[in-house]
């Protein structure tokens, strides 16, 4: 069940963010507060997104999976999500509008398979994904992710 993998307080809803950098700051904050990641991990995600090809974390369907390498600052495998009512452009690229950004902190390349299975199950289910993308408050979002 996907909801069991979210950091406590890690399901966030906002009307809008000023840009993708603010989205990264918002979605990583619960993980930073819980010491699941360090500040270095947040910097690594921003550097990755702004690098050539950095929009590869856009999975399609308005969903992005923000992540970086474990050695840049993952203390513990964890997950958070931010849904915004008004989409923002990933890397300021209009070809990549994002309304739901997950943040994955993974300790290594394989250990988080159960989490990824649950996340893949949600994102490839068009009805469940639509419920996430049309959530209009934090409660609806949490229900859609359950």
């Amino acid at each position: 069940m996907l909801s069991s993998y979210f950091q406590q307080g890690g399901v966030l809803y906002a009307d809008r963010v000023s840009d993708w950098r603010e989205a990264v700051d918002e979605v990583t904050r619960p993980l930073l507060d819980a010491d699941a990641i360090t500040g270095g991990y947040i910097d690594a995600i921003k550097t990755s997104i702004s690098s050539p090809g950095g929009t590869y974390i856009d999975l399609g369907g308005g969903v992005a999976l923000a992540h970086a390498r474990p050695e840049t600052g993952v203390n513990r495998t964890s997950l958070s999500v931010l849904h915004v009512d008004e989409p923002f452009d990933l890397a300021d690229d209009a070809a990549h509008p994002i309304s739901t950004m997950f943040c994955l902190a993974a300790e290594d390349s394989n250990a988080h398979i159960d989490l990824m299975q649950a996340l893949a199950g949600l994102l490839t289910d068009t009805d469940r994904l639509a419920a996430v993308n049309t959530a209009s408050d934090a409660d609806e979002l949490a229900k859609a992710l359950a």
Partner: protein
Amino acid sequence: MKIITACSTGLGSSFMTQLNIEKALRNLGVDGVETDHMDIASVTPTSADVLFVGRDIAEAATGLMKDVVVLDSLIDMDNITKQVAAALERHGVAVPGK
């Protein structure tokens, strides 16, 4: 037959794509195809038979292997299933559930 996926970190987008390809293989009724995910820098021409990548690293993936499939969406199961079936047929693997 081996299919691999790659992204810059080798643990997020590529892992998700690998799991979705495995689901496509199950839907197609195909057994015995090996899958894996890795970072793009680790891919060599002999890593697998087919490499799947997202559109944003298509350029970096060009020429890495003979058979490279570029996906616009990493979560669109209809297209992923279609692309996997086509890749299997290119490599002579029968696809019962097509």
